[in-house]
């Protein structure tokens, strides 16, 4: 008996369906949509904010009038960025069961980490509201720039996710190193301080401080960090009520696109082997 051959879906439509299904599965598996899950979204960034607040204002005697808000504008995007990259290190091994049992577009796997952590990021953005009210910072129409900043963040994060996915599979011993590099990337950014604040003021009391050529090199390193531009862009929109500087968006975007192109190419060249490597 002959039967019609089922339509085998391929291309962008199938990839989109698979991305949606795997993202929903990852969110469900994490059980994030529970009361404790939502609390986690809110409490974790708050805890980090308090820790860094104490470190900077009490220990280093820095900070400023609206330092909590300044800090949160960097912590929220950074936690998303670092959370996705940490998750991507395990995304291939973590999906080994379906990799060895199902044929599906493997290229979507790193993007599922972006999607599954997006609810936590979006919910945590709500924390900005109470802090803005506390410091008397009124939202302006410039907040319409925020979605564009989030898109640039997503491109930069996707680039890291593709690189992280391959690194995590072939060099699992490097996972701790990557976590430490992420932490270093935050400290070597404008996450905790404004560049001009650090290098214009003298050393905090009791510290030796950096002066001269060395400090200029460090300042350049912080400016070269694409996260710095992103943090400054969020602050421009949220705290200062002005559009972000073009360079603060274009540099992280260009950096992200280059790394994404390289990372995705390496990933694509290896993806046919994933089912055999897990």
């Amino acid at each position: 008996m002959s039967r019609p051959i089922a339509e085998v879906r391929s291309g962008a439509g199938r990839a989109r369906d698979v991305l949606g299904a795997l993202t929903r599965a990852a969110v469900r598996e994490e059980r994030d949509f529970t009361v404790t899950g939502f609390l986690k979204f809110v409490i974790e960034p708050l805890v980090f904010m308090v820790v860094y607040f104490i470190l900077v204002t009490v220990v280093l005697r820095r900070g400023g009038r609206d330092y909590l808000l300044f800090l949160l504008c960097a912590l929220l995007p950074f936690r998303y960025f670092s959370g996705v990259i940490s998750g991507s290190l395990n995304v291939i091994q973590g999906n080994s069961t379906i990799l060895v049992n199902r044929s599906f577009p493997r290229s979507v796997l790193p993007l599922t980490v972006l999607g599954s952590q997006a609810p936590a990021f979006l919910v945590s953005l709500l924390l900005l509201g109470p802090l803005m009210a506390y410091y008397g910072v009124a939202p302006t129409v410039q907040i319409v720039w925020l979605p564009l900043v989030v898109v640039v963040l997503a491109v930069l994060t996707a680039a890291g996710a593709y690189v992280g996915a391959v690194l995590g599979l072939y060099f699992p011993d490097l996972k701790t190193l990557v976590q430490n590099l992420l932490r270093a990337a935050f400290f070597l950014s404008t996450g905790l301080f404004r560049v001009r604040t650090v290098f214009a003021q003298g050393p905090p009391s009791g510290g030796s401080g950096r002066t001269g050529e060395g400090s200029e090199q460090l300042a350049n390193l912080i400016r070269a960090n694409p996260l710095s531009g992103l943090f400054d862009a969020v602050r421009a929109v949220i705290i200062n009520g002005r559009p972000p500087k073009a360079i603060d968006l274009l540099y992280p975007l260009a950096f992200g696109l280059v790394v994404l192109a390289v990372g995705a190419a390496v990933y694509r060249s290896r993806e046919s082997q994933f089912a055999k490597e897990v």
Partner: protein
Amino acid sequence: MEQAIRLRDVGIRFRVPRRGRRGLGIPRLLGRRRTKFWGIRHVTFDIARGEVVGLIGPNGSGKSTLLRTVSAIYRPDEGESEVSGRVAPLLTAGAGLSPGLTGWENIELSGVLLGLTRRRTNELAQTIAEFADIRDFMDAPIRVYSAGMKARLGFAIAVHADPDILALDEVISVADEEFRERSAQRLREFIDSGGTVVVASHEVESLTDLCRRFVRLEHGEVVDDGEPGEVGPRYLAEHGATRDRDAPPARRRRAPVWAPIEDR
């Protein structure tokens, strides 16, 4: 005759990590050593639409690797593989089910991964759940399921996913008698409707009544291909009857779903 599967000189290569037997050696400090080997090689054959083909061979002969190649899970490292239509693989007892998801959630995920739309998967969900007959556990995560319950759900998803080709390993043998009979009936309906089946087993006797053709694998290569009545006896002459037959009843494995009822 229209071909469902066409393999030409297909080879699948693996890299297996190796460790020395003596603690920390220099090679281990420099990184994991890997040895390359071919899981299957120089595999060439066609399977026509509607054919029911048994892959036979001892453990490690490449049956599961070949099933994964047919299912497009492995891409050939050499040669060409063409498959026409949708393949539903059922290769392990877990069958690609995610342990942290419920039965319902796994149906949705598996349906989309098998190539269905989300809407079509949701339309089929109730039918799949009824066929698997584990309704009390559909809202529970898969990790609390027994092996038999996972096999039930995995089989139910595979046969209801509108496949053209079923790629089966002998995983369904873990289910109970009632479900195996129901599955055998469903499998025969699929075959009668013109569906293509590729099934792997090292228990030749259990495949003889189901298959119209045997492909025998040894060390990753096809060494025999033809009528079950000819290929089967030649295989058994070299490897003997399945050891399970001689095992005491308590240790004997259950026959797979495709075995004739009187043989179970």
